[in-house]
């Protein structure tokens, strides 16, 4: 299981999270599918739910984790975003020690 899939499973298991949405808008998904179809290999492009990107952060290795979620409505959305970000940071700290983490959490639907 990839890091992205592990983060998705982690977030789906958190209280108040109803769904993890596809990270990319449709146009980007289509673009990726076309790119995958034109490139060698048989693997189709996966629908990304979590995007992890390495960035340069003042000389320190930084991972940016981007995720879009829907809330059940039983946990206030701002608190939910904070708890999801904290859970992602804890998870990355354990899985990849020494990495700085930027958690980009977007609440895309409330009470779904």
């Amino acid at each position: 299981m990839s890091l992205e899939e592990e983060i998705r499973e982690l977030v789906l298991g958190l209280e108040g999270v109803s769904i993890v949405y596809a990270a990319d808008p449709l146009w980007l998904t289509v673009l990726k599918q076309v790119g995958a179809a034109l490139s060698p290999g048989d693997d189709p492009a996966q629908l990304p739910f979590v995007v992890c990107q390495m960035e340069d952060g003042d000389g320190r290795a930084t991972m940016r984790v981007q995720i879009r979620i829907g809330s059940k409505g039983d946990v206030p959305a701002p608190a939910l975003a904070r708890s999801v970000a904290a859970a992602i940071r804890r998870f990355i700290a354990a899985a990849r020690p020494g990495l700085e983490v930027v958690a980009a959490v977007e609440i895309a639907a409330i009470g779904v």
Partner: protein
Amino acid sequence: MNPTRDCGRRIWDLSDFLDTGASPDAEHIAHCPQCQARLAGLRSLHAAALELLEDDVASAGTEESGWLETMLANLRLETRAGRSIPLAGDPSDQLSETEGAVIALVRNIGDSLGGVLIGRCRLDGDVTVPGAPVEVNVNVSARYGYPLPGLAEQLREAVVAGLLVETELNVAAVNVAFTDMRAPIAEPGTEEGGKL
């Protein structure tokens, strides 16, 4: 509004999906917040349409179809992701909720109150700046027979309470405009719903 955030699905495509339960893009619809919000809006619209049919909408005149058209016209715009509303958190994090999610919340709150259907809904103010004053402007279709001042106050209180919990917006005002009236529900044994 950032057009790249719109997934590009059309309302009538989703309406077909709602009717048939099948679509070549079912996987996208299942995971797209914009499509899910549009489906929720369509379900509300279908429920309202059924309610109107029960009230014999055919004899209700052109004003009834007017608010339906208005709601449909605004549905597509309002269920887009819209602006990104920042949320407080760890300085290294980037937390936000979408304007579309907040507008859908306002719509759900309003539609859950008896006698009210939310039509146009806008957040006026710079929602992208934390603490900036924001006015919530909603157009409402009300069912005849409900006292409008009380209904407006009930709606304001419910919207403010909901936004206080689910957002960090500085809500300066919730402005309610009653733009349509719907005929009352027909009483059993009466020929017309409009007779009180």
